[in-house]
């Protein structure tokens, strides 16, 4: 963005509230429905990928703690594109049982798999790893709260 793009609008309120349930609203919605139906499969796929990416980002940056596993997001991707777990496991060279463990959170996502997921679903592999780390840190901070609290910089300096 640069300074030349200064907003020239002089209104404080930028919309009128939309009346719904009217004939014009229904016509408007019909126009959008047609637009939506005209979308190519490629475009629909891109929209779905972006939607899931945004949901992952939102979870990562939210204060929400450990409510969603990496596996929950993976399942959402597989469901969105109607890919069966067995098919996916074979495709990425993983035993189906190990994929199930990963989805349930019983097995960790490693860096190589994060790269694979990132490549297949067109997002940043770090996103997968960061979500896993967020959850793990939360779990650990709960379990080891007392042990960890004993550490401090002042204590270290005065040793």
């Amino acid at each position, binding site marked *: 963005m640069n*300074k030349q793009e200064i907003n020239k*609008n002089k209104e404080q309120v*930028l919309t009128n509230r*939309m009346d719904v349930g009217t004939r014009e609203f229904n016509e408007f919605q019909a126009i959008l429905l047609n637009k*939506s139906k005209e979308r190519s499969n490629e475009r629909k796929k891109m929209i779905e990928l972006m939607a899931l990416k945004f949901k992952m980002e939102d979870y990562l940056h939210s204060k929400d703690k450990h409510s969603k596993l990496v596996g929950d997001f993976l399942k959402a991707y597989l469901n969105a594109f109607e890919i069966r777990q067995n098919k996916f496991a074979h495709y990425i060279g993983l035993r189906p049982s190990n994929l199930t463990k990963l989805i349930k959170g019983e097995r960790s996502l490693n860096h190589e798999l994060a790269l694979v997921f990132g490549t297949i679903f067109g997002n940043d592999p770090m996103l997968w790893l960061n979500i896993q780390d967020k959850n793990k840190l939360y779990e650990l901070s709960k379990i080891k709260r007392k042990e960890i609290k004993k550490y401090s910089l002042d204590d270290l300096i005065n040793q």
Partner: protein
Amino acid sequence: MTYIYDLGNSKLIEVEIVLASGKMPLKKDGWKFNWNKLIKEKNTKTYILRLKDNSQSIEGILQLRIENDMLIMDTIEIAPHNFSSSNKKFDYVAGCLIAFACRESFKIEGNYKGFLTFTSKTNLIEWYKKKYGATQALGQRMYIEDSIGLKLIEKYLY
């Protein structure tokens, strides 16, 4: 990260867009809507754009509504100190809020995913078209489609 432009100091300032809660700004302070009442409306979500290090400073407010699976940007209001061209404090507030609304439109379910819809004020129709790539569909009813929305998200939110 999201930034708005501090016109006085010619620098970008980091902001965040979060769900509105607690006390909202008042009409007596120059706001047009009674936001304390508006945030209680059903089927709506209200977001505030505020400076990252100053949660007291609200620079703009956005209300989104889902109606028949369609995301509607029902109300968008810029803080009184951010709209007048003579003494405007921050720029890009509207852009950030509109881009945020576009991003939300991807997260809804159904046929209208990726469409951000709204009713423009008559005198802003051309402004929306030119500045934000919006399409006029019917009268004052407009929408921003997914590909344009993604460009706005890239420009204003990342």
